[in-house]
């Protein structure tokens, strides 16, 4: 996997501590891979692993954005509804036939999705910072708004991409491969690499972590706290838009239930990946690993013959808790 390499962009001074904490999610992932191999012979096949990682792309990319919001001390519950909303608007635009040429139409749709995603994030961020309201409440509100607007746009049914040309042009973005690597996996790698660069190597990234670890200190140090926090939500919106760009070509349609509970999966991926919910720490590659873990747990359950379908949710929950406990004990030992 492409993710194992850049585990520790750690500063040399505290290398030993950071190392173990950052590596913990990858150890959990390795453990799951062993468990999966025991469960089913086909588990380790390239076909299955690429399927699973490709499938995790939506949550992984959204969770990269969530890492920004959470490490800035915020929270975004609206991402699942936002996916449905942005994807619905994108499909409606592609269907509207404003632009006759399919390629230009598609490109305009892509730009539109990114702009809408950024605007949705900006709305969340501005209400949180200017309105001085708890992010939990703000994004709970916008979660309802995005979901309601999607249901209204679709009249409760489905919004389906109708143009055959656009469909065949767009389909490879989810199902295609470059040099044998499915395109969504490349999307994950690119998004995470960019996000990691910004978070660890730029001034904005350092400001973000400073605001997340102590807002007051950051303010007294002269940081533009409001702007930094708002931008984190914009990054989240952009990540949602990127996830939408992958989601639309898969089924070519959205429904009123698209993306339900994805916000919880994204937050779980972030936490499993080693980012603290209280803010101040952000681990992009850990988050991506967390998203893989979530998807692989589901995959193992389905491939194994020894778990009743009624018990899957319980065992998934237990595995996540155990993975967290393993991480904690590793972190303490260091």
């Amino acid at each position, binding site marked *: 996997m492409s993710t194992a390499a850049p585990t520790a962009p750690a500063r040399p001074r505290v290398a030993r501590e950071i190392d173990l904490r950052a590596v913990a999610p990858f150890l959990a992932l390795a453990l799951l891979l062993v468990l999966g191999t025991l469960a*089913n012979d086909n588990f380790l096949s390239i*076909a299955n692993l690429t399927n699973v990682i490709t499938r995790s792309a939506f949550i992984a990319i959204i969770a990269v954005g969530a890492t920004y919001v959470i490490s800035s001390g915020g929270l975004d519950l609206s991402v699942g509804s936002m996916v449905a909303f942005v994807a619905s608007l994108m499909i409606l635009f592609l269907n509207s036939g404003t632009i006759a040429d399919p390629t230009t139409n598609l490109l305009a749709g892509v730009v539109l999705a990114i702009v809408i995603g950024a605007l949705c994030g900006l709305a969340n961020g501005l209400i949180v910072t200017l309105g001085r309201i708890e992010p939990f409440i703000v994004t709970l509100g916008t979660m309802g708004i995005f979901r309601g607007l999607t249901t209204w746009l679709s009249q*409760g*049914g*489905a919004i389906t991409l109708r143009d055959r040309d656009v469909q065949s042009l767009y389909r490879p973005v989810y199902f295609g491969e470059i040099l044998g690597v499915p395109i969504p996996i490349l999307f994950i790698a690119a998004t995470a690499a960019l996000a990691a660069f910004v978070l660890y190597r730029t001034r904005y990234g350092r400001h973000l972590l400073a605001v997340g670890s102590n807002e007051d200190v950051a303010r007294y140090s002269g940081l533009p706290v409001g702007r930094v926090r708002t931008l984190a939500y914009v990054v989240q919106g952009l990540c949602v838009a990127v996830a939408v760009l992958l989601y639309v070509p898969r*089924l070519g349609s959205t429904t*009123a239930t*698209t993306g339900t509970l994805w916000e919880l999966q994204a937050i779980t991926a972030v936490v499993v990946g080693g980012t603290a919910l209280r803010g101040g720490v952000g681990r992009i590659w850990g988050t991506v690993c967390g998203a893989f873990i979530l998807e692989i747990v589901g995959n193992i359950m389905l491939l194994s013959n020894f778990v009743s*379908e009624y018990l899957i949710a319980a065992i998934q929950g237990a595995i996540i808790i155990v993975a967290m406990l393993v991480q904690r004990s590793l972190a303490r030992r260091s």
Partner: protein
Amino acid sequence: MRQQFFGLAVAAVAAFAALAQPASAQEGKKYTVGVSIPAADHGWTAGVVFHAQRVAKLLMEEHPGLNVVVKTSPDPASQANAVQDLAVQGLDALVILPTDPDPLVNAIQQVKDGGAFVALVDRAPSDNDDSVRDLYVAGNNPALGRVAGEYIAKTTPDAQVVVVRGLPIPIDQQRQDGFDEGIKGSNVKVLDRQYGNWNRDDAFRVMQDYLTKYPKIDVVWCQDDDMAVGVLEAIEQANRSDIQYVVAGAGSKDMIKRVMDGDKMIPVDVLYPPAMVGTAMELTVAHLYDQTPVSGSYILDATLVTKDNAKEFYFPESPF
């Protein structure tokens, strides 16, 4: 016979209009019918809303004195309020598809005690007798499974089948039991059953994993048209040619269209039509204007939609 009547009720209000003509002496009478249904929160309920509004319009055109009020509610509490609001306006009849039947029994009972005719649709409370409602119209969940099972047993008697279930609720269990009954005595073998939550993305995931787990699958039964979208996409991506066909159910316009067009992967669909709310409304109005006796239970067949009859069940303007 019942099937024929069903065809009339759902597809053709034209036929109904012809039936209602002789009753024109009654036309001057003023009646108010309240229709309380769940808000459109997924495909099937979106279909319910569409058909309730469609049939309401048609009925009011036929009977100038008739007023049909359609109200949608997202949850049982607000639906109870909506029913009370409707009752205040003075109802002659109530057609209700409860979001959750048991919490709504009291509200329905009040309307019935007030002397209105009550038609209950699809979801029945634990005590479903004539003390709460006059007419009960519903689809047939066990039959939805049985018809699918029988079709698979007849078309491919030795098939290896994977099943994508809905959510762990009684309706889903009834469908599974019906399916088992349908394939009884044949060589059809169920390889696996997993929950797809009546959701496209979850069904896609489950199907991908089935394809990894089983080298040879003949037939997929996913009982729901929304889930079929995800299942088909997963099969197409895997480039697997062993899967002969997929049996879904409900009667969404996309799947009915595929059946109509002779799609090899979707040769049939099993009906569990959201238009049943229209059946209840038509019967209720027939009771008011034509004094036709309609009290009792009216269980729609889980009709097998094939290429030949698909046109009857195709509503291109419906959101579902």
